């Protein structure tokens, strides 16, 4: 179990992952998600999902949550000018996950095989979960 952690630590360049109640947390400012996805696929990890958290400086934090039996690993990274390489070609399960973040937080995943909107209605602008757009859109809805 710990050789996976060592391999990851080497990949990300951060020595010690933070051990919390719900698994290991890695912080990685500059990370190549495709390499991370391939490493995880070789160790038969499953990508539970990817969470996007809005940051004040207009960027978005992306956390990749991997899981295998009782080992949960979460890797947090930040987008560079709202862009991040897509891992949908390596892990097909990431296809819908990235499309949804694309709709909600306006993060563009380069190299995504099928970047159509997933569940965003056409009336909604891209990234309508971000604070200021959400406020505007909810006010419009209230007005109707």
């Amino acid at each position: 179990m710990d050789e996976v952690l060592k391999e990851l630590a080497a990949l990300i360049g951060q020595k010690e992952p933070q051990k919390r109640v719900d698994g290991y947390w890695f912080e990685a400012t500059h990370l190549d998600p495709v390499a991370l996805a391939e490493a995880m696929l070789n160790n038969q990890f499953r990508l539970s999902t990817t969470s996007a958290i809005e940051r004040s400086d207009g960027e978005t934090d992306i956390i990749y949550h991997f899981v295998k039996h009782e080992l949960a690993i979460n890797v947090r990274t930040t987008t560079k000018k709202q862009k991040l390489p897509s891992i949908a070609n390596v892990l097909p399960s990431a296809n819908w996950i990235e499309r949804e973040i694309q709709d909600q937080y306006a993060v563009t995943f380069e190299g995504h095989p099928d970047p159509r909107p997933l569940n965003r209605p056409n009336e909604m602008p891209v990234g309508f979960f971000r604070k200021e757009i959400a406020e505007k859109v909810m006010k419009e809805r209230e007005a109707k």
Partner: protein
Amino acid sequence: MNGIFSKLINISRRRSPWVYRINAGSCNGCDIEVAPCFSPRYDGEQIGGVLQGSPKHADILLISGPITLRTRAMVEDVYNQIPSPKAVIALGSCPASGNVFRGSPTVIGSAEAVIPVDLYVPGCPPRPQAILEAIQTAARMLEKGETRSQKEVKND
């Protein structure tokens, strides 16, 4: 002769309420309460009710869910496909007011804004027998001509 004939048709509207269910963005709590209405314990068939597969064969529309933006066109389209006289029953609080989803940008929140609603069944979700009682009330409204589809036909 015409009086008896139309009286017979009115009575037959109450006796055979054919029902069609449409899910307009609901959390499917109300939808799983419609299926038991036709299971042995409550058996909608004892009042003549049948759950139909096509809107064209139905005359009572059960609508559930807070009408999300993408289902709005679908709801209008299905409502127009149902031949009049027809009645609309709003299942639960979502079609009435949007329930907990009110204020969300992708939800219209009230079925009244899309189609004329005849009956509201409160509850989240309402019990199957409340839905059956609503079907019976709607069938009685169809008989007396009190549904909005019949009233609108009268005055325009």
